[in-house]
């Protein structure tokens, strides 16, 4: 029972990440009709916002280690600590959550530039061309990041107070051994908040209504004489922001490296398609569903029964869902079927 509960938590947590990435992807899909293979790169850029913010905060005074003569080795002490003592240490400790402040303008700007500079010229082009151009862009972004940060993962720890685990078991009056990392709980809450915010934005603002109308029928909205171009730019920037925030918050769980976007790319496409093209609730549902199933499939009880099931569960479920439901969980007819 405990094992199942904790795997459920794992699944929700994974699902939160999948859903968040898929959300931005399907937003761009549904409204702009763009197959964005650079979406994983946006997620990665988000994580690297956290990395760079941490690097900035920890700009250090270097004290040479005199015992080493063959090369320069330093013991580093961040200036923030030198100037402000414990306050400085505390600020550095909160680098990841604080970096959200940096990520918001940066990701919006990246989204804006990407849409204006590239994506908008590809709305009318074939999906194959969209794939090629965005894939090329993703590779370039990746290589640029590698040039500056190297190929190794970079540790970006969560703040000290939340680096431990919460006694979930005790809270629910269950096994006291049942613990769960605070940061993962925060990630879950954070992604639920972002998902709700995106839904609320689309549901309750005029802007959102236009976007939703656009997702339902792009051509009609274009005919209404609404300046759809401007709105598309904003939608894309929001998609980039959501991906970026997903990346920032994921950094303490998965130390960022330049390739992490590609690792998530295929998965996020599977999530979007299983959810149904152009359906936001579908993407969220599929994200959580696949996350939870993946967690359960890796339980020894399951994987000893079906060897290898944990390796393929996501794809297996995707195949089954797509064969049973032609347009995924909540897709509409005629969207991306040609």
């Amino acid at each position, binding site marked *: 029972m*405990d*094992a199942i509960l*904790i*795997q459920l*938590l*794992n*699944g929700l*947590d*994974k699902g939160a*990440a999948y859903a968040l990435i898929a959300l931005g992807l399907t937003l761009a899909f549904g409204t702009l009709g763009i197959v964005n293979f650079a979406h994983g790169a946006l997620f990665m850029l988000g994580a690297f916002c956290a990395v760079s913010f941490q690097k900035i905060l920890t700009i250090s005074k270097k004290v040479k*280690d005199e*015992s*080493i003569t*063959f*090369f*320069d*080795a*330093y*013991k*580093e002490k961040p200036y923030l600590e030198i100037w402000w003592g414990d306050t400085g240490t505390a600020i550095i400790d909160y680098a990841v959550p604080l970096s959200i402040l940096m990520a918001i303008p940066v990701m919006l700007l990246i989204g804006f530039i990407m849409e204006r500079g590239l994506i908008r010229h590809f709305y009318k082009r074939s999906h194959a061309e969209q794939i090629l151009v965005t894939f090329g862009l993703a590779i370039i972004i990746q290589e640029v990041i*590698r040039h500056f940060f*190297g*190929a*190794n*993962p*970079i*540790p970006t*720890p*969560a703040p000290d107070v939340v*680096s*431990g*685990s919460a006694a979930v078991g005790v809270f629910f009056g269950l*096994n006291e*051994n*049942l*613990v*769960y*990392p605070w*940061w*993962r709980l925060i990630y879950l809450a954070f992604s639920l908040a972002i998902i709700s915010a995106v839904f609320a934005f689309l549901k309750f603002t005029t802007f959102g209504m236009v976007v939703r109308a656009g997702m339902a029928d792009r051509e009609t909205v274009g005919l209404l004489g609404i300046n759809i171009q401007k709105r598309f730019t904003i939608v894309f920037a929001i998609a980039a922001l959501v991906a970026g925030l997903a990346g920032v918050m994921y950094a*303490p*769980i*998965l*130390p960022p*490296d330049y*390739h*992490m976007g590609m*690792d*998530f790319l295929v998965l996020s496409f599977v999530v979007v398609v299983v959810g149904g093209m152009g359906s936001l609730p579908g993407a969220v549902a599929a994200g959580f569903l696949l996350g939870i199933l*993946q*967690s359960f499939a*890796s*339980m*020894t009880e399951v994987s000893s029964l079906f060897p290898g099931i*944990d*390796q393929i569960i996501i794809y297996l479920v995707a195949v089954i869902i797509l064969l049973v439901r032609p347009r995924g969980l909540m897709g509409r007819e005629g969207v991306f079927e040609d």
Partner: protein
Amino acid sequence: MKKNDQTPSLNRRGFIKTAGAAGVVASAPMIFMKGAYAAKDFRNDPKDSKTVTLGFNVPQSGPYADEGADELRAYKLAVKHLNGEGDGGMMKTMKPSMLKGNGILGKKVVFSTGDTQTKSDAARASAKRMIEKDGALMITGGSSSGVAIAVQGLCQEMGTIFMAGLTHSNDTTGKDKRRYGFRHFFNTEMSGAALGPVLEKEYGTDRTAYHLTADYTWGWSQEGSIKKYTEAMGWKTKAAVKTPVGAGDFSQFITPVLNSGADTLILNHYGKDMVNSLTQAVQFGLRDKQVNGKDFQIVVPLFSRLMAQGAGENIKGILGSTNWNWALKDEGSQAFVKSFGAEYGQPPSMAAHTCYVQTLLYANACEMAGTFYPPEVIKALEGFKFDGMGNGATEYRAEDHQCFKDVLVVRGNQNPSSQFDLLEVVQEVPRAQVEYKPELLGGDLGPYEV
């Protein structure tokens, strides 16, 4: 095409001329001696050429790109030293050595590079290019066992010697060993043999281990070796769970550990997988746990400094084994760290070390054989005993082409004195303790002549 690094072009050309001339003079007697082998025709025989080409096949993209970059630094340094430039590094400490600093057999060493992408196909394609197009006489490098085994197999077919880079799986010099392949790096069997006693001393004999194992050949090899040695000293193995390579999020594998009753987690992961699983295991509070009245422990059997960087704080205090560390105080290590540090401003990684040593060993074997003819070079390497290369007295065992030498057991440094000071050496496990019979791992070397 393949020149050494960039000096202003005029100077460089001038230099090559003189070096080349010197080479001809130096090699003149050799050509005489070589008569016996001259009849044998072999691939990429440099014959009258003034240069000899080595092929450096390292990961330049993919997860091990940083490690590959460090390997390449080491290779370039080795080439410099062989050609008599720089301070000579380990050439001065290697014993016995026939290296003179005039290239190999009087021929200036040049090189070509390739990207393995840490994929068997790409690595083989790149090795083939260096052999077929660039005329490489020897291939070396790599940062994973799958690639090493794939390239080693190819080199056997092509009749080109392969000096493996970082490869830790038993199979490289076991099941899949080849006559043309040589490994200086240690393997999982040796890791197990070295770690076992240290684990016993640190954590006692009454422990229950839980393995998380990367689901591919190296992972299984590692798991098998650690199990073998820990179970022999009385540890129990609670479970050994396979994790998909590149899983990213390991939470679903870590949570079952929490209530399994195990008190030790063994992470048979390397690279990104290791960084991720360790980071996440610590987040789940495993290291703060008490099980069966004992502090919960995490062990990472294969360590490298570059990986330790990625894991950050989480690596502190964790035990593992490594092939070499720059902080070693022996003469050879010091000489190497000195010249590497002077050249690149940073210490070499263990991958860099093994690659540097392999290049020197190959060059020395050619000098010993007095020819580049691979079967003779192989015979010179087989059973070669040497010292002064950072791992104590070492032997290239003839039966499986595995180097036997001291193994380091290390611990993540609790209080690093600098950004490079991430691992502290717990023990230099003597060679005798990690040696095993060649029959243990099976395999067949194959013929000298191909």
